């Protein structure tokens, strides 16, 4: 089974002015599409071609670099488009807010830690909010297209929120000002989706 580029639940311009339409279009229809195509090409004709993306990630250290890079790129962007959206932002509520407060002290303390992880990732990569096997929430960051599902990740678990800090995610609008992009990200976080991923 070949992986498919998912359709977005919203239009490319739906996250304006925080994320601009041109960035969204290139990011989804070019970058994400390329990871999807390259992943399918890397798997074609191999025994791994029938595995789920999660199964591929779980022992990615035994697979090719192409599967690691493009499988990560495919999974990470799938998650990213879901945890952002229009009419979003603000604060989480309910169980998610309670879990964040329990693990980080307060929502603002969590936001600071996550923003710092995103700002200080040198080069290309991602910042994550991760649910660990024991239920604990932690902030981490990974280089390039690695993610916390990967057996080779320093911090392992299930990502429930992710922020892409590859320059392609923000350069057309924010250029060298990554911190401004990170600040804008908080206006488009879909907390309902993050809460659903915490429960899953």
């Amino acid at each position: 089974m070949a992986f498919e580029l998912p359709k977005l639940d919203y239009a490319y311009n739906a996250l304006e002015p925080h994320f601009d339409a041109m960035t969204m279009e290139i990011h989804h229809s070019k970058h994400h599409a390329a990871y999807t195509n390259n992943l399918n090409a890397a798997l074609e004709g191999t025994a791994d071609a029938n595995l789920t993306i999660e199964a591929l990630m779980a022992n990615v250290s035994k697979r090719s670099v192409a599967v690691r890079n493009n499988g990560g790129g495919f999974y990470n962007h799938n998650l990213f488009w879901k945890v952002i959206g229009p009419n979003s932002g603000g604060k989480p509520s309910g169980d998610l807010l309670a879990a964040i407060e329990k693990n980080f002290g307060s929502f603002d303390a969590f936001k600071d830690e996550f923003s710092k992880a995103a700002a200080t990732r040198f080069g290309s990569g991602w910042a994550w909010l991760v649910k660990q096997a024991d239920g604990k929430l932690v902030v981490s960051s990974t280089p390039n297209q690695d993610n916390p599902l990967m057996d080779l990740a320093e911090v392992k678990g299930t990502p429930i929120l992710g922020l892409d800090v590859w320059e392609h995610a923000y350069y057309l609008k924010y250029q060298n000002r990554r911190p401004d992009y990170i600040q804008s990200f908080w206006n488009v976080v879909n907390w309902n989706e993050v809460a659903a991923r915490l429960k899953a």
Partner: protein
Amino acid sequence: MTFKLPDLPYTLDALEPNISKKTFEFHYAKHHQAYVTNLNNLIPGTEFENADLETIVKKADGPIFNNGAQVWNHTFFFLSFSPNGGGKPTGALAAAIDNTFGSFEKFKEAFSQAAATLFGSGWAWLVKKADGSLEIIKEGNAGNPLRNGLTPILTCDVWEHAYYLDYQNKRPDYIQNFWNVIDWNVVGNRY
């Protein structure tokens, strides 16, 4: 010592249309400048306070290495260009390229391939080994061949900030036009 952003031997719009003025305004005046400023802020009170840049590139780790090597890499990169660039190398470098790669065209293809396939942020390098032969290598993020005892001859910055305003996701187009601005006199003298 205090480091300074180097002057460029051309104006910021001089490499149009291959590399735009807008790209230079960010890449040189913002990114390169930030690495210089960060480095100057990081080294006081460390063993690198009085070190030259090459020592920092060879010996430092963490943020001091990242910023120091990015200062070195960008200076080396920007000083490889000329508005009258392009064409082919001559003399000893041309002979060494023919020796190692078979022809200039084959070298160009291999170097372009290395630059296109480096995953994430980083640099493609043409380096000289101790025996005078050449090699193409890829280095992630701030990586620099001096750390492995190699002599850098040419480099291509493939961090997305180097080309995203002009080429977006089309990194191969950026690499193709990179060849139009190389000053082979400068690059040849490094060999």
